[in-house]
């Protein structure tokens, strides 16, 4: 078995999501090669070489890979892919953008969002917004899959000593161009990796109120902040904070849902959290059915009281 893992990075540092993918690769078993496609990304390759369990790192350094354009990276992955039994990437927007394209270039089917490895070609994955779990077997010559990070404990970032090899660029496909990027800056932990997440929904009322009420709680707990789709659509917070079927999937130790009713699509993104707390003024809110602890009350008085009691 030879497994190719596509590294997720920003040309400077390896994204933690890659460590979860390597963990999934170890469950499959075999030689693990990490592909770093980037521009000026030597530091990323060096970091990937230190990751526990990695036997080789391939570095394709070319301006064409600077912004992870799917047209260019998928072309590179497809050019070397037939030499591997498995190709894996993280279920991030980058992984989901690139990997299906690479799979189609290799003429193989792929599996999205695996949450468990049953055998080298059989995996579990959630369907219907997490309301059913499918066991899927791939009879393809190459198993191509994205890995749901929260389902696999990350391997250690240190301890490995893989060799870094340069890989020739597959060039620019010439059909797409990066224009710009607006990245939301935050001092808080990254949402998908945070130990505690505090999320607000429509019930928080306004963007101003979201921050007035929830910021002190998140600060006190050292938590990341999330939101329901209703809060994002109402313009309270930017959409990269959305948790759910169409947003981010989180599974922290503690998830505090404030003013969130708990639609199926929201539950899809957080119901694997270890402990769920719901604070809602509605006794009948569906979120209460998945919550370990739920408190009925006005969030505007309950949350500040909670902050002062922690």
């Amino acid at each position: 078995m030879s497994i190719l893992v596509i590294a997720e990075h920003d040309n400077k540092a390896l994204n933690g999501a890659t460590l979860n993918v390597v963990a999934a690769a170890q469950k499959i078993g075999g030689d693990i090669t990490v592909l770093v496609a980037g521009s000026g990304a030597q530091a990323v390759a060096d970091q990937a070489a230190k990751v526990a369990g990695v036997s080789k790192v391939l570095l394709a350094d070319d301006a064409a890979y600077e912004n992870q354009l799917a047209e260019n990276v998928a072309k590179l992955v497809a050019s070397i892919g037939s030499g591997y039994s498995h190709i894996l990437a993280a279920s991030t927007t980058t992984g989901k953008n690139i990997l299906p394209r690479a799979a189609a270039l290799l003429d193989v089917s792929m599996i999205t969002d695996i949450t468990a490895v049953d055998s080298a070609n059989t995996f579990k994955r959630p369907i219907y917004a997490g309301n059913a779990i499918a066991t899927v077997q791939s009879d393809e010559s190459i198993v191509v899959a994205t890995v749901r990070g929260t389902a696999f404990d990350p391997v250690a970032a240190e301890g490995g000593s893989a060799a870094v090899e340069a890989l020739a660029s597959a060039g620019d496909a010439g059909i797409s161009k990066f224009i710009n990027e607006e990245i939301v800056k935050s001092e808080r932990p990254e949402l998908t990796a945070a130990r505690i997440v505090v999320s607000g929904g429509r019930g928080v009322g306004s963007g101003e109120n979201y921050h007035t009420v929830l910021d002190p709680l998140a600060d006190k707990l050292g938590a990341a902040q999330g939101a329901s789709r209703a809060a994002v659509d109402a313009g309270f917070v930017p959409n990269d904070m959305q948790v759910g079927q169409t947003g981010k999937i989180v599974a922290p130790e503690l998830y505090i849902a404030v003013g969130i009713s708990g639609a199926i699509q929201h539950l899809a993104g957080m119901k694997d959290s270890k402990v769920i707390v719901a604070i809602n003024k509605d006794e009948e809110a569906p979120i209460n059915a998945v919550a370990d602890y739920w408190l009925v009350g006005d969030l505007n008085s309950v949350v500040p009281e909670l902050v002062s009691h922690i």
Partner: protein
Amino acid sequence: MKALVAVKRVVDANVKVRVKPDNSGVDLTNVKMSINPFCEIAVEEAVRLKEKGTVSEIVVVSIGPKEAQEQIRSSMALGADRGILVEADENQLGALEIAKILKGVVEAEQPQLILLGKQAIDDDSNQVGQMLGALLGAGQGTFASEVKVEGDKVQVTREIDGGLQTVELALPAIITTDLRLNEPRYAALPNIMKARKKPLDTKSPADYGVNLATKLKTVKVEAPAERKAGVQVKSVDELVEKLKNEAKVI
């Protein structure tokens, strides 16, 4: 220019699905079916581009059972001009097979813009648009929250994990829609009546030379592990006490 929109018939987003007792799949008998919400957004975007004068004709295609005609008619009631139904057994269709059929449709229709939803809410795969891009050698603007056509190029603002990214693609290009791209309109009754008269062709995968039978096999489908029932706490003090001493998470 011509726009092609792919739509899928799926279980309605508000239905809580049940797994069949024999674990062969999800029970869809007598369950409300609808157009996939992301596909509806793709139709709406095409209609808006037509209203702006960018797009001259909207062709909507669906691949699946005969009943998918309903979703094609709904798309026509929203403003699509004509429909193509590729009738096929859904159990043999994986994302790759669907992308191959769509490639055939694109080659026959020659659209400049190809719009799809970013994922279907039943299989949650999020693959077809990207695969179609690969098969056509066309650029892909996935998870789009803004689309601007300028001459023979299209600028797509994409929702990425850290925020937003804008890319420019040469036409023809693939666009997959995110929820924030637009808010689909409701079909008015006169438009629903008019949609009944719009042309709808029926085709088969063989018409596009596509061999079915996906190499992915669903071995079984199970209900997810149930969470054990929680407790209602009466006060903030009680909540903090439970989180500290019982759950030990803070």
